[in-house]
């Protein structure tokens, strides 16, 4: 069995940003083991596969649907087992959370406050935005101390009208889809198939140039699936994993779980973690589309996939009764099949905040490698917000020449798995503390969006990456 200063599980955003900060503080003699269950499937090879090229390599990684047991299949969970994790399939939307998102209980009497504030996270938001070369506007609904690294994307004609009316409540979406070519990435040109960007404009761990996996102190092992930890008193002694069908263990002075929330919870449950909130309250936001038919106004001219974020239904005292709703203004190649009205239509993704609920949880199964995911329903708090949005949206969009608004069904997933190892100030309130250290095992970090105390509608990646930097910075 090998001993390390740190054992990191996973190579997605959470692990990689944690590792970056850890390495910046660790001595030259530090030994770090990174265990990745999957393999690198290069962006260039993904493109070959999607183009149907004859020499396209076979993706060595498992289909994510085969890696867990979904006990409620109507609710889908989307992620990607691969080196770089879901950076390979994310769409690169990076709004910050609002300061109020961290204070849901004290401001609105809902759920709980996060154990850290926006102000504490602010410098780490900035650091992630710099590393990702985020494109964004000068004015935002949340405070910032300096401009975004890249200029904002271009609005559509519809976005321009809404921005004129709502100002900082309707902004160019902050995004990791580069506005101009940067760090070896191309310029986003709105192809709207961002899961695998055709021009490599989107930030991924593979194209990040962060260098953490090239660091001589780091030993990266592919094909190594961690399934449990050996817990002893208030520490983790060993990390147990399977590689090529064989059992292995490693010890680390510290251990950081950076898989997605489903697997982080599962590893803890497999290990005998008895914290009553471990695995409990896993969830996602809820999303649907509003299709606005326009009279003699064409929705054109955006420079990326989602050009704008609307905050008109997001924050306010209504959050005492029902949840926040974030709008995304789309520029994908949708159209009306009506003569002369082809692009006289706008599409908005409406994303609703949710709260962790006991009825939604992760459990172990007969197969120690496969978690069970149970999701009974979204909260009443969320569903009320859907109804409120439907009533308010015509007024919100009244500055547009509206013919009618139609709503789609709910999406089966937002591809944002949240909760299961929530943060809390005390062991009663959460599994981990503000530095993402398990309240009961003090050398164990449980990273990622599983730590979210509440499920604001904003996209989670920027925040979970900032939390990783914050955790490592405050702990070492």
């Amino acid at each position, binding site marked *: 069995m090998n001993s390390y200063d740190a054992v990191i599980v996973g190579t997605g955003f959470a692990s990689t940003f944690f590792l970056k900060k850890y390495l910046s503080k660790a001595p030259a003699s530090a030994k770090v083991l990174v265990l990745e269950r999957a393999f690198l499937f290069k962006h260039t090879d993904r493109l070959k596969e999607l183009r149907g090229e004859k020499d396209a390599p076979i993706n060595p990684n498992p289909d994510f649907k085969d890696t867990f047991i979904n006990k409620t299949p109507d609710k889908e969970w989307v992620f990607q087992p691969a080196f770089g994790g879901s950076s390979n399939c994310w769409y690169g939307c990076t709004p910050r959370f609002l300061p109020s998102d961290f204070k849901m209980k004290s401001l609105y009497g809902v759920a709980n406050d996060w154990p850290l504030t926006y102000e504490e996270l602010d410098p780490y938001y900035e650091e992630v935005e710099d590393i990702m070369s985020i494109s964004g506007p000068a004015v935002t609904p949340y405070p910032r101390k300096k401009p975004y690294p890249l200029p904002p994307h271009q609005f559509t004609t519809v976005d321009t009208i809404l921005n004129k009316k709502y100002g900082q409540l309707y902004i160019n979406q902050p995004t990791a889809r580069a506005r101009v070519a940067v760090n070896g990435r191309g310029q986003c040109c709105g*192809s709207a198939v961002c899961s695998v960007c055709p021009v490599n404009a989107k930030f991924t761990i593979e194209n990040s140039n962060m260098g953490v996996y090239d660091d001589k102190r780091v030993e990266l092992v592919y094909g190594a699936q961690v399934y449990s930890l050996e817990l002893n008193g208030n520490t983790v002694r060993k990390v147990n994993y399977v590689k090529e069908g064989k059992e292995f263990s490693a010890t680390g002075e510290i251990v950081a779980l950076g898989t997605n929330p489903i697997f982080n919870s599962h590893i803890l449950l497999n290990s005998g973690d008895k914290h009553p909130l471990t695995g409990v309250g896993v969830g996602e936001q809820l999303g649907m589309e509003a299709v606005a038919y326009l009279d003699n106004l064409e929705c*054109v*001219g955006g*420079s990326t996939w989602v050009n704008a974020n609307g905050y008109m239904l997001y924050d306010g005292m209504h959050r005492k009764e029902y949840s926040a709703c974030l709008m995304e203004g789309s520029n994908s190649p949708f159209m009306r*099949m009506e003569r002369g009205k082809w*692009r006289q239509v706008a599409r908005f993704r409406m994303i609703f905040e949710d709260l962790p609920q006991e009825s939604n949880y992760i459990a172990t199964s007969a197969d120690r490698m496969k978690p069970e995911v149970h999701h009974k329903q979204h909260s009443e708090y969320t569903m009320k917000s859907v109804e409120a949005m439907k009533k308010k949206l015509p007024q919100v969009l009244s500055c547009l020449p509206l013919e009618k608004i139609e709503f789609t069904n709910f999406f089966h997933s937002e591809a944002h798995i949240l909760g299961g190892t929530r943060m809390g100030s005390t062991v009663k309130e959460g599994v981990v503390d503000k530095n993402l250290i398990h309240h009961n095992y003090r050398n164990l970090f449980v990273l990622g969006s599983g730590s979210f105390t509440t499920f604001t509608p904003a996209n989670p990646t920027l925040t979970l990456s900032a939390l990783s930097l914050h955790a490592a910075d405050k702990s070492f």
Partner: protein
Amino acid sequence: MKRRKFLTLSGIAAAVVALPAIGLVSTSVKDATAATIFNDFPYLKLDKEGVDKFVDALLIARPPTLAFKTKVRGAKLLGMKASKANLKFNVSQQYLLSTDFFRNKMDESKPVKFIGFYDPYQMPCSNPFTSLYYPPDKS
């Protein structure tokens, strides 16, 4: 009913049932798909060769299921538009995106020419509604 009358009526009934079925089978999927696209856009100047090339590419990119084949043949028989034929994916929308129609700013007076099957992985940056085609100073 006399035997002759019975046979005549039976023959007519059989023909009523069989002729559409023959029509369904005898029309090629390619011809049927092309026909429904023409049905969708009688007011546009589509080029027949381009529509055929598009359909060839479509049938390779999305090999037709039995349901698609049946529906599109039925749609042709009934003179339906592709967009109304419940084909699961929007053939006509895909066709328009594969032409210069949007690049010509939806000008119905101009001939609509096939550029290439719309696939962002084969032709990145071809979303015709972006700022590449509507630069800020002109939009």
